């Protein structure tokens, strides 16, 4: 049972690092944004995993049902964070489109070369 919980946290660590690798190692700007989205999703997974309670249900009172609820607080934080994430992604994609129009490329090394000329 303990390995099960630890597995969730290990997947969080691996997903975080895969997203971070895409951000720092890839040169294409859209690939970096996709890596950033993966990074954010890993953080969401961590928070919701911490909120789970054994034998609990979703924190919604119903007429029949158990009294053990999972923690509502991380869910509220992550609900907000998901929408903020999409806002940042949309703005980032807008900047990428404008960069493509101005420089003709969305590869970071080519943009730097054009700037240095």
């Amino acid at each position: 049972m303990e390995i099960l919980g630890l597995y969730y946290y290990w997947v969080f660590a691996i997903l975080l690092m895969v997203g971070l690798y895409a951000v720092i190692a890839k040169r294409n700007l859209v690939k970096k944004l996709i890596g950033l989205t993966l990074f954010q999703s890993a953080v969401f997974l961590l928070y919701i995993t911490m909120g789970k309670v054994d034998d609990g249900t979703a924190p919604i009172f119903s007429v029949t049902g158990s009294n053990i609820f999972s923690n509502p607080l991380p869910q509220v934080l992550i609900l907000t964070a998901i929408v903020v994430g999409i806002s940042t992604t949309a703005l980032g994609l807008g900047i990428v489109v404008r960069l493509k129009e101005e420089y003709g490329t969305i590869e970071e090394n080519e943009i730097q070369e054009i700037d240095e000329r």
Partner: protein
Amino acid sequence: MIVIFGVFLLTLLVITAIAIVRTENLFVAVMLQGIASLFIAGNFFLLDAADVALTEAAIGAGISTVLFLSALALTSERERSKSSNKMLSFTVVAVAALVLIYATFDKPRFGDPNAPVQTHVAPWYLEKTPEYIDIPNVVTAVLGSYRGYDTLGEVLVVFTAGIGVLFLLGSGAPLGSLPQEKINEGLRHHLIPRVVGRVLIPFILLFGLYVQFHGEYGPGGGFQAGAIIAAAIILFALLEGEQRALSVIPARVLLGLVAFGPLLYLAVGIAGIVLGGNFLDYSVLSSDSVTGQQLGILLIEAGVGITVTGVLLSIFHAFAARGR
């Protein structure tokens, strides 16, 4: 025991994430990212986070894929250059991953009811919600009332992203100003998607409204509803062509929605001050404080839904209009 199914989903998620990083075709990467969002949404549902699963599925797998594809249509589809400093980045990332994995051994046991996060503030929320607010969905109660100020900030973040994209990309030309041959026909000449889309769009809108107003009784609320309604109208824009969608819901109306949502939220807050309480204090909105709380949550969820719909549609039209 059902959480063991989550292990299976998580393994698939890791494989998908590695495939996203390794593929060179950006179109494939965007599609895989949508699939990864669905795996995560499934996992959220297994971890008893129904609201969050709905939001991740609607926004992460739906709207995010559409936005990425619109941006890819305006930029290139393949990744051209090789990665820089592969060995160095991989070493840094691997070391950080090992440190994180070492740190996870200290975490409280998964699902432990006596973990610090479960005993601090959450029992107070679960206990006092039937007394102060009396709605079944505790997540909406916390989001709308106890932590309403945070949600106001978040609505303003969405608003800022909307006007940011409008500054960068503009909002597209109205129907009458373009010559006939440049008007986008969408999928009008393809019979099957057009007919089926016309049948489905009213039901999607109905479902969006259901999710909006049932946020207090089950999973749902403003964010999810805004995403679903925006998805329905984006489907209409894809089927009928983007200019016809702009003539059905003009850009001015969208700007009005984008502005009206936060204004509604702020108006509810200021009404609290005017009627004698604090900012965003809903108990003074009605003679009975519990009814006032419910009225306040209903109004601000409507504000949130309107903002999210307006912003997502404005962003989509900004991207779609750019290529012309």
